[in-house]
């Protein structure tokens, strides 16, 4: 990025040696992570362009988001990064930005049915199941034809479908699926009850558990405690605080961490390039596209990181996603010391 900004300086004549300031709008739903995204995004933009400013707005309703977007457009933003609040109304924002010739980057969630969308930055949701299944296979070691229980989330969620498909592609012919079930609504109590039934049918012999997310992993662990021996590796997703604590304590083997920092920084780089009319370097997206119903949108799809006991410190702690104080609360103090988190 530094090289790019140098190119910009040269392209602009470089008389003053200062990159001309541009305004980049960051429009997010009002959630608990919005402020973290904003901080990472702003820091990245400031690094490459000290004169640029980030116009950040968070919305609770789609009317608010719409007003924030049109105000950003009329207020002179050169690029818009938009995490859409609602499918039905976000496409209109892209249309209006297009009328004023302002590029729009869809952040984390894809804006559907918008042919004029410039870019999409998110995690590769289709890869999640395969990634998790691969690391679970590694954790189970050399055991031949191990018995695995697979717990999926809400069946109508498209992410559940892609999770199942990509996990199956990896696990096929390598493991025996002892039980496989969906969890309507993703309710942990349901997941726990079904796990209890599955365990009984397997005579309490399980070699690995693959869960669609950390909440489901927690429910499965609750059902297994005191009944299953030897304790099998459990894989979840989301890097939730309770999951990190279970990893520290040895109850869960791994989780997937979709780094907010990496995602916000990728969005900042793409938005910066679009704002200055620079071609986004091919290395960022590897030529990947995602179809949003109206066309193929160039995409940067990040791969989540597998977090185990050994890299908690270099991933979630290093990013400030969780602090050691949060992870090592009272009953986890000694376990933390054992794995070396301080």
């Amino acid at each position, binding site marked *: 990025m530094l090289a790019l900004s140098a190119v910009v300086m040269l392209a602009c004549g470089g008389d003053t040696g200062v990159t001309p300031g541009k*305004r980049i709008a960051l429009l997010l739903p*009002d959630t608990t992570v919005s402020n973290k995204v904003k901080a990472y995004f702003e820091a990245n933009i400031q690094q490459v362009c000290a004169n640029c*400013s*980030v*116009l*950040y*707005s*968070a*919305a*609770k*309703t*789609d*009317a*608010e988001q*719409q*007003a*924030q977007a*049109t*105000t*950003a*457009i*009329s*207020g*002179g933003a*050169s690029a818009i990064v938009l995490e859409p*609040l*609602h*499918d*039905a*109304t976000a*496409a*209109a*924002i892209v*249309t*209006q930005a297009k*009328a*004023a*010739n*302002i590029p729009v980057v869809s952040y984390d969630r894809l804006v*559907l*049915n*918008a042919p004029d969308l410039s870019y999409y930055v998110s995690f590769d949701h289709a890869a999640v199941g395969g990634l998790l299944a691969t690391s679970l296979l590694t954790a189970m070691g050399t055991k031949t034809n191990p018995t695995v229980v697979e717990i999926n989330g809400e069946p109508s969620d498209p992410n559940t479908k892609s999770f199942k498909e990509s996990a199956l592609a990896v696990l096929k012919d390598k493991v025996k699926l002892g039980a496989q079930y969906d969890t309507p609504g993703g309710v942990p109590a349901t997941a726990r009850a079904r796990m209890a039934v599955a365990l009984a049918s397997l005579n309490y012999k399980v070699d690995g558990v693959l869960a669609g997310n950390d909440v489901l992993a927690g429910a499965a662990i609750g059902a297994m405690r005191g009944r299953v021996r030897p304790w099998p590796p459990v894989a979840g997703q989301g890097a939730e605080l309770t999951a990190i604590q279970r990893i520290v304590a040895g109850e869960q083997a791994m989780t997937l961490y979709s780094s907010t920092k990496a995602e916000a920084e990728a969005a900042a780089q793409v938005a910066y390039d679009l704002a200055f009319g620079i071609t986004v370097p091919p290395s960022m997206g590897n030529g990947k596209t995602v179809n949003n119903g109206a066309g193929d949108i160039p995409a940067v799809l990040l791969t989540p990181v597998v977090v185990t006991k050994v890299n908690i410190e270099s991933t979630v702690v290093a990013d400030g996603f969780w602090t050691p104080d949060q992870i090592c609360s009272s009953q986890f103090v000694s376990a933390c010391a054992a794995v070396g988190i301080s």
Partner: protein
Amino acid sequence: MAPEEAPDLTAAPEAARAELPPEVVAQSLGEYVRAYAARIKGGESGVLPVVAAMVAIVLVFTAISPNHVFLSPGNLVNLFQQAAVFMVLAMAEGFALVLGEIDLSVGFVGAIGAAITVQLVQPTTTKWHWIPAIIAGLLACTVFGLIQGTLITRLRLPSFIVTLAGYLIANGIFLDILLLGPFSGYPNLLGQSDNLSVIYHLMWGIIDPTVSWIGAAVVVIAVGLLIWLSDSRRRKSGLVAPPASLSLIKIGLIAAVAIVVVAICNTNRANLGTLAGVPWVIPIVLGVLGAWTILLQRTKFGRYVYAIGGNAEAARRAGVNVALIRTIGFGLCSFTAGVAMLLYASLLGGMSNNVGGGQYVLYAVAAAVIGGTSLFGGRGKPLHGVLGGLVIAGIYNGLYLLPQLSSVEWQYIITGLVLLAAVVIDAVSRRGAASGSVTRT
């Protein structure tokens, strides 16, 4: 909503003067100005506070927005588009407020109409033409309003409670209508269909710059002639009428506003390429404003509305069919809410379940009251809703431009403070007028 004390007509003439519109007592421009000043002193400040608020908003946000972008043509056009929903919804609420009532259901009742229209024009399902689709939506709103009005007037229920129930019921019906489509998700207005595009262009369509000038000229000449002819007819027949110089000043002001608005809209506001012209939403809002101003200020129905709002019992004794007028008032309120939320659907390019129906009611009441409509009934004009809507949208727009203050908390706090100020002005001016008549006896 305490019953208002009737003005004491035997009181000193200079005190009574403050209660009368300036044109009733003034014969020349000088007298008119003096009468207007006396009226302001007497607490009848009219649109003065809201105009002052608008000037303050423009000055403050122009000064502190980056590159003074608040006052750029692109942002002003955008501000008007954002304000349009508030404006029309405030004009809707105005019917209830002038009658001395309140309607809490406007947001979701209007949303029902908009959802019906947006669903009916979907090219994959019902495929209605846009005209019958809009009529069906507005009709549904009107029926909902008439039912509420009937319950309030015939069963003598408080409008607060009936429309609170209506708010919940309308919210439910609205969500049901949204889910009727066979497609996944909610209906939107983007797509290859003339009927979709007409609805989308209510808010986003742009009139060609040349046509904009011609249209504005026609409107100014028509309104000017109307004002001039009606005033001079009154003067000729010896009725109370404003002086000729005042009529000319009024017409001049309207022409000046039209020229400024068209000039701003005709400035190119695209980053690259061209985007210029008056958005269709401006004539639409002006149309609603014109229609409801004529209805309330030039017809018998309008005079009855003000009479009931001022003193319902006096109106009844004078032979006004209070229940009927009130019921129609609630019907018109819901009808206008339907227009407002249709503009909302157009603004958003579709309809989702994420409609802040409760929030919109508050903004509608706030816009009307900020504009100068009294919460105590009998006083208020459609113009107040338009001005108040501009103030609210101005605050929001200005805050969105500021990276430091763009969070929703500040918008809520500042809008709340402005509303509070407006209610204080309303209540104090009422009390000023009331206590004035008490001391006179």
